[in-house]
Structures are given as C-alpha cells and as structure tokens.
C-alpha cells in the first residue's frame, strides 16, 4: 500500500440543511493522494449531498474545504472542476443527442488557437481513453445508441479525460457486469498509482474490501467512523451504517402461502426482457433481484399495462387477462408502486388526501362528484395504518420527507384494494426509520394475504424479505432460489452473469 501522503482534499465541519432536513452535520473527510477512500452509508445518509458539495453543485451552510492545503470555495461546478475534482455521478447525466467524444468533453472542450473547438484532438483523446477502458464503441457514436453499461463507461471516460487529482465515483459499478467491474478496478488501481485521490461510493462490501484503502462512514448526515480497511469487518461497517443490529432491519413474519394469485408465462418484448415465467401466491413475497438495467422494472411495467409485451400469458387468480392499460391492471387487482417516487409515484403539489385517493377516485365519488368525507375516511385509515407524519391531510407531498411520501404512495395503492402488489425499490432513498416501517408494512400486507412482488437492488432486503428470489440478468431470469437456499455470493454471481461468461 502507498504511504499516506498529505491530505489532497480536506473537509472539516461541513453542514448542509434543506428545508425540513439536516442533510449533513459537521462532517469531516480527508482524501489522501494515491489512496482509495470508501464512503459508506445507507441511502439517505448524506452521501449524495456530500458529493454535490464536493462538485460545487450545492454550497455548504458551514464548514471548510481545502484542496492540497489551500482553502477553496466552490461557487459553481466549474470551480470544483478547476480545483481538480471530477465526479462520476450516480445517475447518468449525459446528452443523448451528442456524440461520445462530446459527452466526454462537455464543459471543458479543447480549443485551438483560433478558439474553435479542436474536434480531431478530442476524438483522438476520447478514442485513447475508450481503448484503455476496452470499450466496444468509438468516439463518434451518438450516446442514445448506447446501452446502460456503455453509457456508464462514457461517464468514466469523462472523469478520466480531466486531469483531476481527485476522482469521486458515486456507485460506479451499479450497472456494470462483473467483467466490467474488473476493468474499472484496474483503472482505479492505475489512477491510484498516478497519485490521485479517489472517493469510492458503493453499497457492495465485497467491492469496498477489494479496492479501498480507507473507509469513512456516514449515518443520518453525521460522521460516525473512519479507519483503515484492513482493520474493520463487514459486520462492524453494517452496524455503523445502520446504527442497530442487522437482524432488526428486515422483519419477516412466517405467513402461510395461499393459492396462486398471479401466473406469468413466457412474457417477453422486443428488446427489454424475454422468457419470464413465474407464479405468485397469496401471502408470498417474491423477490426480484438484479443489477440496475437488468429489465426488472421494464417487466413489471409491462405487467401493469404501462407498455405492451409482445407475447406471454398472464393469469390473475386463475383467469387469463389481457392488460393494456394501468386502469385495466387496477381493475384486475394489480397495484404497482414505481421505483421513482418523485416522478412516477407521487403528485408532489397534491395534498395527502388527493394523493391517497388518486388511483381509486371512482370509489370516492357520488356519481361524478367527489366526496370529501369518503376521501378523508380513506386518508385517515391509510395514514394511521402507515403512521404518516404530517400536520394535516391537505399538506402537499412536496413538504414531506421521502419516507412519508413513500408511505402515502403505498397507501394510494392499498386503497385500490389489490390482490397483487408490485413494489419497485420501495425503500430507495428513504431514511432508515421509514425503511424499517416500510419493511414492517410489507410483512403485514403479506400476512393479510396479498401476493407481493418485491423488486430490489438491495441484497439484504431481498434476502431478508422474500419467500422466493428470482435473479434477473440481461432481461432474463438467471436463477431462482427458495428462501434459505440463497447465499449472497450465489445471487451476485447470477445477477452479474459471471457463471455465464465463465461457461461461454
């Protein structure tokens, strides 16, 4: 291991609050040249806010940042970039209509003496970086022609194109196959050798232990621990992140499994998923695990009538149904809690009452006229059941925390009285307390006889909650596990297609 140099980047006492939320409280962070520092923390612990502060997207309310001993202030992303900080952001933030080379160089294009953009040089440099990354596409392809993993490589290339001393990687492996992860780690090793400081954010402990030299842990916006990676165990890290023993996180009750409520055979569409077949029983929780972009959400949305599958049969409670719209899906007894709460789940300017009854408006009407009384009755029932925290039932959702928003979205779907509940990443981006509450709720709902499909990227969640686990890889079900048969390693192997590539 490299000898720890002087801190290349130093954060001290950084705090940041948003209306209603204290996102970061007195956070310290040191990054040393030639080292990989892993930033650990649950969703909602403040990692993304920290990244935004480091990249100049958000300004901290308090605290100091210095780069190589020099105090700095970032008024804009430009300043952070100029200070040598480059980031691979969690969500792919790129320009579909532009070429790969342009995506790589946007914001810092090379110019010739005449101040005109030097396309040849940029293409050449991009091609070089892509070769290093062993990418299977060139610099001139339009970004919209690329797949998820390929787009991610473009982000990596973008970070490499800048001679930044500090590289932040916010979950860079989320959408990568294991071979691609190996490539990425080789690159990280080289960056390390060049003396750059790397902040590596990942949920996958295996990766953290493989690549990181040091770790820093955040919980609820606070700094809860720091150390060398060789002196810590995974168990200790989880305890630090979660703040309580792991066993409590996923309450799972033993529930009798009933009759089949949903039978899917040979579901497929042209480009996203194929050969999907599974059966869901009353009281059963069926876990769908897979990498981001493995086709899980797409399959669920087709099931819910949001897109049209090309073939396949779907039976609800034994009866074959053709679902062409969400309205028909709701009528058939399906409910779908989408992955993206802010854009797909909640109507943020609407109040709690209006959100709760949105998917079952007909039942809250006299004729065409809305009945406020009936709406309130449902809202109170759901609010109590899910322990929603709010001032009043008219409060707009945009004023509530992510956890409370998610409870209301759940309530909206329970109000449709479904037989089948599809949950797409139900705990993504909500705080730890709400997360436990949502898990408890899922357990309760299964107990009263709902069939539940739980789509999740969080291994402990899937393993802790599910009766059956289906692992998706590249649009197909790669493996099926019964509860108790599954090990974390086996699931990850199936999800990353390692077994397949080894066989091939």
């Amino acid at each position, binding site marked *: 291991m490299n000898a720890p140099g002087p801190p290349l980047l130093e954060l001290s006492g950084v705090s940041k609050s948003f209306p209603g939320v204290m996102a970061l409280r007195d956070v310290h962070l040191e990054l040393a040249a030639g080292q990989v520092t892993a930033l650990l923390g649950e969703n909602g612990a403040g990692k993304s806010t920290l990244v935004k502060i480091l990249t100049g997207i958000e300004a901290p309310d308090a605290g100091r940042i210095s780069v190589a001993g020099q105090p700095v202030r970032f008024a804009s992303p430009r300043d952070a970039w100029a200070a040598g900080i480059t980031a691979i952001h969690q969500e792919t933030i790129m320009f579909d209509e532009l070429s790969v080379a342009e995506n790589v160089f946007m914001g810092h294009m090379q110019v010739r003496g005449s101040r005109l953009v030097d396309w040849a040089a940029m293409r050449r440099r991009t091609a070089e970086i892509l070769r290093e990354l062993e990418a299977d596409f060139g610099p001139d392809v339009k970004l919209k022609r690329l797949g998820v993993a390929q787009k991610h490589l473009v982000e990596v290339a973008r970070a490499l194109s800048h001679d930044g001393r500090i590289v932040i990687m916010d979950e860079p492996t989320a959408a990568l196959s294991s071979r691609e992860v190996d490539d990425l780690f080789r690159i990280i090793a080289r960056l390390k050798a060049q003396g750059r400081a790397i902040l590596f954010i990942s949920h996958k402990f295996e990766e953290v232990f493989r690549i990181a030299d040091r770790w820093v842990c955040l919980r609820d916006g606070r700094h809860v621990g720091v150390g060398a990676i060789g002196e810590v165990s995974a168990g200790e890290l989880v305890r630090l992140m979660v703040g309580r023993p792991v066993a409590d996180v996923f309450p799972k009750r033993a529930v009798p499994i009933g009759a089949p409520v949903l039978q899917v055979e040979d579901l497929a569409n042209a480009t996203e998923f194929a050969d999907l077949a599974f059966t869901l029983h009353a009281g059963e929780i069926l876990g769908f695990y897979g990498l981001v972009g493995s086709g899980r959400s797409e399959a669920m949305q087709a099931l819910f009538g949001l897109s049209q599958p090309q073939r396949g049969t779907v039976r609800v409670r034994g009866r074959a149904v053709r679902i062409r719209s*969400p309205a028909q899906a709701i009528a058939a007894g399906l409910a779908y809690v989408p992955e993206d709460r802010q854009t797909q789940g909640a*109507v943020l300017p609407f109040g709690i009452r*209006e959100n709760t009854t949105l998917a079952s408006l007909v039942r809250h009407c006299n004729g065409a006229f809305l009945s406020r009384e009936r709406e309130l009755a449902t809202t109170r029932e759901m609010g109590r059941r899910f322990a929603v925290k709010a001032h009043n039932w008219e409060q707009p959702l945009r004023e509530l925390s992510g956890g409370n928003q998610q409870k209301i979205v759940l309530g909206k779907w329970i109000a449709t009285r479904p037989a089948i509940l599809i949950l797409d990443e139900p705990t993504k981006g909500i705080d730890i307390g709400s997360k436990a509450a949502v898990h408890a709720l899922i357990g309760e709902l299964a107990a009263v006889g709902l069939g539940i499909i739980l789509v999740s990227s969080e291994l402990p969640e899937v393993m802790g909650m599910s009766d059956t686990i289906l692992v998706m890889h590249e649009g197909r079900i790669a493996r099926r596990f019964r509860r108790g048969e599954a090990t974390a390693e086996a699931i990850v192997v199936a999800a990353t297609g390692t077994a397949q590539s080894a066989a091939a």
Partner: protein
Amino acid sequence: MNAPPPVVAERYRVADRAPHRPADLLLRWESVLVLLLAAAIVVNTLISPHFLNVYNLSDATADFSEQAIIALPMALLILVREIDLSVSAIIALASLAIGLCSRAGEPAWLLVAAALAVGALCGAVNGALVAVVRLPSIVVTIGTMSLFRGIAQVALGDKAITGYSNAFQSIGQGAVLDWPPLPASFVLFLLLSLVFGIALHRTRYGRALYAIGSNPVAARFSGLPVDRARFLLFVLSGLLSGLAGALLTARIGSTRPNIALGWELTVVTMVVLGGFSIAGGEGTIPGLVLAVFLLGTVTWGLSLVNIPAVEISVLVGALMIVAIALPILLRRLTRHWRPETAAPLRSRSIGNDDVPVSNRDFPDPEGASTRDQ
C-alpha cells in the same frame, strides 16, 4: 423475532384541514385579480361618466365574450400542459361552414350545428395528433392553424360571404333579456363558466386533470386515462371554438378569411392572466373569469378615452409578463425570510414552485423540501 422498530408504534396527530391563515387568502392569485378589477372599475368610473351605463357595459361584453368562451377549454388544455393555437383558425373554418350552409339556404339552427360539428372535427384532428401520434401540441396546432385557415382562404379567396338571415344574425346581435340587456354570448360564457367551474373543482374528472397537469407520469401510473383526456380536451376546444365562430359570424354578419385573426394570443393571455401556469397543474376557473372581466374592463375603459386598440395591447402584453414575473420575484424575496413557506393552495399563489414550461425538467438542482438526504 424482535419487536418491530419503534417508529411503527408511534402515531401522529394529523388535522383534517389545513390551518386557516388570512395571509394565504391574500396571497391567492384570485385575490390579486379582485383587487386589480376593483381598481380598474374605480379608475374607469372616474375617467369616464359613460362607463357605468348598463347599455354601454353590455355592449362591451360582446367584444370579449366569444374569446372568453374559448378561454375555458384553453384553460383546461394549459392545465394539462397542452396548448391550442389553432382556435382562431377553427373559427375561420366554422364560419366558412356556416357561410356554405347559409348559401345553401339552410335554417339558422343548422348553421350553428355545422359550426359546432366542424369545430369538433378540427379539435379531433388536433387531439389525434397530440394524444395518439404523440406530437407536441404547440407544433401540431401551429401546423393545423395554417392548415385550417389555409382551407378557409382557398375556399373564400379574397371574397367574403355575407347576407345571413335575420334569424341567424339575431343569435349574435340580440339580447337574451330586455333588462339587463345581456348578449347571448355573454350569458353563454357565464353558464359555461359555471359548468366548467363545477366540473373542474368538484368532480373526479377535474381532479384527474389537475393530476395530469401536475405529474402526467404519476397520473398515468395511477390508472388515469391521460391520453383520452388530452384528446377530449382538444375536441372540446374545437367545439367551443366552433360555437364562438357561430356567435362571431352572427354578430358581424359576414365570413372573411381573416376572421378572428390573432385571437389565439388574446385567449392564451386571458388564461395565463387567470392564474393558469404554462407548466401545468395550476389555476382555477374563478381566476379565469376574473381575468376575463379585468381584461374586458381595462380594454373597454381605455377605448372610452379613445386610446387605440394597438396601444392597449402593449398594456395587455406587459400585464401578462408582469403577472407571471411578479410572483416569481416575490417568492425569491420571501424565500430569504421564510425558507419553509407552505403554500397549500392549488391556484397560483406566491410561494408555489412553477417551473417554466420549456424548462420543465430543469435543475431545481434537486426538489426543494422533498429531498431525502
């Protein structure tokens, strides 16, 4: 298994209604409009003794009632993030249909029916292109605007159709009652506002429109028929444009290729001034009605003191920009004092986050109070 986490056990007390705060009422856009309207009436009365004459007033209403009738469906379209720029061209086509039927010697009721049918058909063309082919409505209706008006021009050339029967002309020129002597178009506007108001603010269809306008994706995911709603709103817009075409043709007694030219901009101005955000999901029918009266009063008052219409339009244009800009600027000011201003109102109120339409998914680099981290 361990006891469930403590959070689940906790229960919160949640009120049924939002607290009543007088400040909220004052900050409502409708309140601003009421004040402006009152001011306009007072000023008009002071500068012209003729202003409060009932016959003058009812004359004045005829000038804007036809536009106001189209403003109602336009408001609903803007509410769901669409726009119909072809309304004035639909009037031209509807007026052409009336002219052709009149030449054929058809009775007055059939003339009106023809206008309505042509209007609805044009609306269906717009609706199909937007909701079925999924094209942006602003471009679609710029295209159909040329197409519809162009067809009228081809049919009419540089001539006009005149010589309408008295029975037909009385629709646009006569009054419904002897006193107050209100023109039919004005009475129709009032009745339609009532229907639109109830439908939008009291029924599930209205709720669905607000949901679609606020978040079309979430609305679709919640099983609401988003595309059907869009289609029907365009048909409605066409239908009422046809009605306005009939009223206008009857009032002026002729069909010309340039009839109602440029009305779409006035109608959009009414809607925007009424508090409907171009970004969708905001605005009320009472607000729209107030804006119609405000514009009518200002225009009428200024014309009484012989200010030409073109100069009045400068004022109207400025009024529209200021009406949108002011809440944004005030919000920026107040944000420093009260970072957590709650604005539980659906109408445009100072403190709401309305995002420019073309920047709909612009950074607010992460939603204000909804963040998790």
